[in-house]
């Protein structure tokens, strides 16, 4: 029997239409397409795809169920390992994880594992999620700090093991970066909320407006709870550190995206939080966050949306799919450019950015070729808004206020692979421990740490 060599396409909004709205770009598979795609799976005995999955989903298992048309069973198989499939099914870099290992890659494209996960998660959500069976209570209580991907995963898994879990969230909404960072058109907020509701249905309580380190200290949590998980993420924006960065018109990616996503500035004045972008926007950086900024700007009405990046497309850290979507939508890539200063008018309002052209030299520590400035190549372009998307560092609040925790040189909490920190009973995972990474790696960490906490509680 011959196997189709390419993945089934996922229908999506045409670029010219979608840049006028904040609705999700891909529509997702239909039942028919999902079954056809699932039938491409070879059901390899050694399950190579699973090696690439940070949250250990039985991938051939759920794909078999889809091929047989049993979507409920497929949902059960996924949920056995992953409490947040509608999220990972959208933002996971499958191409470098499960799909990277797929045997079909030898003859063509891998099975669309990510698309199938998303299909099942959406099917289940639309149908109404089954309330899971409540496990027997262990009598142990655990505090989880932060309700981002690491915290939610850890909390959900701990609840399934029978521990009572309370999550402390500093902001007014759950989800962390899923809510404030990733735009609506890539990850609808209603979906995040629905996934959070599922985690709550497992028995997890979420307390909002609690800034751990300020409202309550980790030490106080230690007195009250049997264990504490810190999953406060990488929320501290990095800056270019060039002149003019404090002008009116320069935002960190975090401020810009938080205003638009969490505070819903794209619906101003229906919502109270404003955002101002003008006609020409330049985003600095080339990761997923930069693509989000550049694409959001177009949806807010920018006439031109540039990405300035000091290397070339080959070195861009963003997922290929995100770069492709940005290109389709008309984002202009100015590659091999390095900003040297922002220039404002007499009132201090951003008007221009000056940059140097670069060329690639010898490979650096990251293995990527190092960008080297070309002397005398200064150029300026007029811009109204600059979005600085060159990465985030671990959130400093807890490291600052809990001196007993050992902190790494990048401000991260030092923890082993299972989340054990220098203080017994305190665990950490996700970006706060590793530095900024991906949603799925944070979820994977949340999962591993939940097991370590379970072991710790059993031996306590």
């Amino acid at each position: 029997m011959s196997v189709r060599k390419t993945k089934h396409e996922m229908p999506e909004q045409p670029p010219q239409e979608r840049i006028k709205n904040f609705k999700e770009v891909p529509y997702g598979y239909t039942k028919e397409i999902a079954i056809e795609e699932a039938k491409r799976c070879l059901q390899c005995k050694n399950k190579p795809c699973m090696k690439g999955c940070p949250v250990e989903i039985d991938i051939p298992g759920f794909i078999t169920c889809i091929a047989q048309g049993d979507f409920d069973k497929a949902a059960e198989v996924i949920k056995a390992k992953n409490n947040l499939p509608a999220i990972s099914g959208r933002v996971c870099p499958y191409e470098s994880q499960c799909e990277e290992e797929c045997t079909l890659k030898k003859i063509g494209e891998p099975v669309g594992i990510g698309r199938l996960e998303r299909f099942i998660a959406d099917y289940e959500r639309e149908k109404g999620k089954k309330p899971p069976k409540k496990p027997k209570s262990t009598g142990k209580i655990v505090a989880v700090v932060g309700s981002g991907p690491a915290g939610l995963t850890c909390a959900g898994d701990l609840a399934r093991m029978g521990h009572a879990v309370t999550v402390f969230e500093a902001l007014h909404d759950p989800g962390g970066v899923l809510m404030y960072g990733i735009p609506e058109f890539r990850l609808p907020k209603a979906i995040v909320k629905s996934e959070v509701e599922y985690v709550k249905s497992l028995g997890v309580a979420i307390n909002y407006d609690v800034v751990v380190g300020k409202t309550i200290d980790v030490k106080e949590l230690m007195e009250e709870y049997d264990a504490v998980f810190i999953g406060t993420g990488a929320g501290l924006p990095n800056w270019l550190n060039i002149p003019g960065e404090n002008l009116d018109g320069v935002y960190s990616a975090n401020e810009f995206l938080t205003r638009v996503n969490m505070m819903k500035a794209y619906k101003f004045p229906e919502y109270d939080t404003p955002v101002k972008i003008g006609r020409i926007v330049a985003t600095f950086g080339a990761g997923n966050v930069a693509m989000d900024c550049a694409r959001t700007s177009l949806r807010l009405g920018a006439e031109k949306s540039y990405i300035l990046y000091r290397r070339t497309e080959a070195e861009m850290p963003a997922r290929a799919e995100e770069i492709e979507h940005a290109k389709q939508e008309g984002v202009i890539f100015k590659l091999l450019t390095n900003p040297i200063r922002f220039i404002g008018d007499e009132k201090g309002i951003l008007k221009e950015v000056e940059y140097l052209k670069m060329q690639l030299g010898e490979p650096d520590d990251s293995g990527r070729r190092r960008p080297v400035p070309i002397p005398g190549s200064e150029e300026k372009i007029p811009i109204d808004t600059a979005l600085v998307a060159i990465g985030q560092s671990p959130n400093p609040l807890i490291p600052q206020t809990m001196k007993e925790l050992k902190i790494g040189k990048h401000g991260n909490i030092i923890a082993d692979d299972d989340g054990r920190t220098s203080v017994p009973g305190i665990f950490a995972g996700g970006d706060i421990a590793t530095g900024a990474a991906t949603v799925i790696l944070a979820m994977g960490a949340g999962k591993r740490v939940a097991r370590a906490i379970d072991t710790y509680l059993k031996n306590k």
Partner: protein
Amino acid sequence: MYEIIEKKVLSDTVKLMKIKAPLVAKKAQPGQFIILRIDERGERIPLTIADSDPKKGTITIIFLEVGKTTKQLGTLNVGDSLENFAGPLGMPSEVKKYGTVVCVGGGVGIAPLYPIVKALKESGNNVISILGAKTKDLLLLEKEIEAYSDEFYIATDDGSKGHKGFVSDVLQKVIDTQNVNMVMAIGPIIMMKVVSNLTKKYDIKTLVSLNPIMVDGTGMCGGCRVSIDGKTKFACVDGPEFDGHKVDYDNLMLRNRRFIHAEGEACKLAGAQ
């Protein structure tokens, strides 16, 4: 939800509210602030804590109705609730025994000055307070602050009470006659700038409390960044208090005007409803 359990109208545009927020009240220290959001569509705004009562679990805020959110807040009454109220945020004031301290408050900046005056007095300082406002009706917490002050002065722009002129005129006289060890100034940016310029000449340590635009208030967005001695700091986690001699006030004034157009639009729409 955080209930409003007391409300006082201090002037046409200035209101006081006590909010039930036991966790915040338990931890609040002079100089810190909170972030509130009125309802699901609201923006997050920072307000400096004017007083706290850990026993009753309340935080006092005093605010000037200046934009859409503060005007809307002013229409709420006892029994109404706020959707969100997070804190205490920022670093507490550096309260210790300095010797003679002058506390300068202008406009609604007098409100956050009050707990600091109290704490400085209780730490054994000789406290001289100077309060300023456009006119006497806009003066706040006169009696409360006077009660904790060894010397107490008032300045109004129109001369309706105390010295006619600026708080800096009074401060100059104090500096001329006494040995001042520290000045704490909270008020309009221009007032803090003038006070800092004055004390710099005499090399008197000066602390100011800055009020930039914030979103999260936890060190995440950087919207509140201020330039201190040429270095970028976040007022929400590094401040809100900074060495007054090192602040780039002009940049702060500029950054606080970032959304003035949208604010006007929102106010107009709210007014039309």
